[in-house]
């Protein structure tokens, strides 16, 4: 695979991942802006309103028909938190022309035009979004936010994050808040949209078997031409959390208790985070990990038990689903594992195994289009320019001492338990 990055205009970057491995082309537009209480709900709503209709394809039905005509091009959008930023993501995936019955249709070009049209050329009337769309999407957004409780596992994790990052950008819910919706209308939402498009960091990704022509298609696109240079308003620094939040127990109608523990890692720089990745893999990141082995395989307290490292926030979340009466038992077992890590009670072999599993997953980024895009966006956001080879080399360097050092900096910040 060949990766090229170009700054098209100040604040707008084009990333091309050229590869002939796939039958599809994947195009993505990421709009990155700082997470703020005052804009988080409107930003989330914008992405919902945009997919309702563009200036060219004014209804969802027209958009859907167009996508179907493009041999089932799939359009998707999502909202993510990346560090202290809110990222509006739009994707379109199409079949490469060489796998189509009639190869004279330039599907890629049409797909690129469609996604730019949806994101940058919305359906506008009198300097406002279409009123009906905004009102409907406000209702839908309300349901979506309230729908948080439907997946108890993810809900527990989100609640732990909120507690741990109380009053901090990262503590904000990525879809926003129901109470904000009543003050949003088609006019002020459009105003917010114009502001967002003028100020946000824009990254455009194209992954697939593409030639130089694709760059021209994008540069020459009318909607891209309209975009102005900008000093992007994303957060390049991520706010550290310093206050310990302690224990938080909440009740809900659940069959199984969901335990989430938020850990501050306290890395001193970006480079140290590679050591943390190894630490997390040994602690709870795989089937061989201390938490999986001790909580599940030895004590048989859980089916799901593990941990995840949020690199941008330098935070680890441990989670498991347990019998409610086993709360203390599970918590103590997990604390024991944290202590054992500090005391270096793990083998060189475990360090080597952790490296193997991380390296193996990094190697597959060339084999999965969306993983490739996520990787290069991650590099972009963390200010790293590590190639896959450099990344692997850095992981190889980690030794047991490094991991013990990480272990001794790790502190429990928040213990969250959802029970009945």
């Amino acid at each position, binding site marked *: 695979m060949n990766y090229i990055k170009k700054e098209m205009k100040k604040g707008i970057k084009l990333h091309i991942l050229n590869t002939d491995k796939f*039958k599809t082309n994947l195009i993505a537009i990421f709009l990155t802006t700082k997470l703020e209480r005052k804009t988080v709900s409107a930003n989330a709503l914008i992405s919902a309103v945009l997919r309702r209709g563009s200036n060219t394809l004014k*209804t969802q039905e027209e958009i859907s028909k167009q996508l179907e005509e493009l041999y089932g091009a799939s359009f998707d959008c999502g909202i993510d938190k990346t560090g202290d930023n809110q990222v509006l993501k739009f994707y379109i995936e199409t079949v490469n022309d060489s796998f189509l019955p009639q190869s004279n249709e330039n599907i890629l070009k049409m797909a690129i035009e469609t996604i730019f049209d949806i994101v940058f050329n919305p359906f506008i009337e009198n300097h406002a979004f279409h009123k009906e769309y905004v009102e409907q999407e406000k209702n839908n957004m309300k349901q979506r936010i309230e729908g948080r409780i439907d997946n108890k596992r993810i809900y527990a994790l989100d609640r732990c994050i909120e507690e741990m990052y109380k009053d901090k950008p990262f503590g904000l819910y990525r879809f926003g808040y129901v109470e904000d919706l009543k003050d949003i209308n088609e006019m002020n939402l459009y105003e917010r949209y114009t502001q967002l498009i003028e100020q946000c960091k824009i990254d455009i990704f194209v992954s697939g078997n593409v030639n130089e022509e694709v760059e021209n298609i994008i540069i020459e696109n009318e909607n891209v031409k309209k975009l102005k240079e900008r000093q992007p308003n994303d957060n390049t620094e991520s706010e550290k959390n310093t206050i310990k939040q302690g224990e938080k127990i909440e009740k809900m109608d659940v069959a199984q208790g969901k335990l989430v523990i938020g850990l501050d890692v306290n890395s001193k720089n970006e480079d140290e985070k590679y050591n943390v990745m190894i630490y997390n893999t040994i602690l709870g990141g795989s089937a061989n990990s201390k938490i999986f082995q001790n909580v599940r395989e030895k004590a048989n307290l859980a089916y*799901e038990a593990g941990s995840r490292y949020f690199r941008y926030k330098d935070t680890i979340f441990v989670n498991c689903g347990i019998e409610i009466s086993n709360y203390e038992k599970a918590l103590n077992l997990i604390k024991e594992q944290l202590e054992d890590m500090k005391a270096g009670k793990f083998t060189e072999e475990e360090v080597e195994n952790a490296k193997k599993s991380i390296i*193996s997953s990094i190697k597959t980024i060339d084999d999965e289009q969306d993983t490739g895009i996520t990787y290069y966006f991650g590099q972009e956001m963390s200010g790293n320019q590590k190639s896959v080879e450099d990344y692997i080399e850095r992981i190889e360097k980690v030794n047991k001492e490094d991991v013990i050092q990480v272990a001794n900096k790790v502190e429990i910040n928040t213990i969250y338990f959802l029970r009945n």
Partner: protein
Amino acid sequence: MQVIENSKVKETLYLEKLENGLTVMIIPKRGMKKKYMIWGTNYGSNENVFIVPGENIKTEVPNGIAHFLEHKLFEQENGTNSLDTLTALGVEANAFTTNDMTAYLFSCTDNFYPAMDELMNYVQNPYFTDENVEKEKGIIGQEIMMYDDYPDWKVYLNAMQILYHNHPIKIDVVGTIDSINQIDKEVLYKCYNTFYNLSNMAIVICGDFEPENILEEVKKRLKESKANGEIQTFYPEEPDTIVKEKIEEKMEVSQPMYTIAIKVKPTDNPEEMVKRDIAIQILLELLIGKSSSLYKQLYNEGIISRGIGANYEFSENYAHVIISGQSNDPQQVYNKIKEEIKRQQQEGFCEKDFNRIKKKIYGEYVKDYDDVENISNMFLANYFLGINSFDYLNQIDNMNVEYLTQVLNDVFKEEKMVISIVKN
């Protein structure tokens, strides 16, 4: 080896049925770093009554045993656990059980052969003890409780309860706390010896491989085994009718969830399975897909806020259409879908829409061939039904309005429809 090429997706399947009965399928993917291997047995949670080869009486086993067996197969006589061994090799290993099959798999970039050693060793060498069976009950018990907290799973299972009178598709794949408590090592061995015979199994390997070489590598690792002939399994008599039309359950959810299901008469003809599957996919798009008029209406009226999920699930002995989602008024969604079916049955559908949807489905089939994991899982599940996955790419050309109309009338029958709702 049988060599089957497909010019549309430009892929080739190499298939070999070994003397011991095992089927090996290889789909080479040049230039891919990721490699994938999956070993499945044509045995899932539905096979609960059978005759152990060599015996002449029926054996009935506790619900959830196929899944329990899947968990236990990782345990080794020397005290190690194969999942740990595989993870230590830096490969991603896993296993899963469905109503119809059980499969063991791994994906990796390096260490393919050592991982293959381990996978092929543990699947061929069960080691069950009273102690290790007992301990698993705690873990699976928590897995069952985890699913208890998933309203989307509950609403689906409830639909199966009212769609089927007796068929084991009604039963949760993982079983219940009670049923798994009845499991012991003897009954696990019985199931293993019956269903893990090589003649009941298939391996799929996908990645940058030379087919002949990789086939030899598989053969080298196989224990001596004789095909144990056809396995006799028994299913209870299942009437064509539904049990009742509606079921509701209370759970803490933000908005009611629904699963609408339509009972379909199963076919055991693989060609017909594929044709019907494609036709139903096209019909579901025409009825409630994102470009349909019903979808537009429901969305604009605020009755639905997200897409409606729809698919067709089938084997030789069960078949049903599933339509699911969230809505404040599931009953109205149900009524409108019924009306729309009736309208399309009377008025027919527009040929232009049909052609557009056909393009969409074709594109989706092509997309299935990018990921080694997806390709392998698809070929394996289809193989157990007697289907070669390439057939989908070939059969879609044969779809026409007459056939679709016939399926619309045969499958989408009002008296075969049920709705399950979960709400506060």
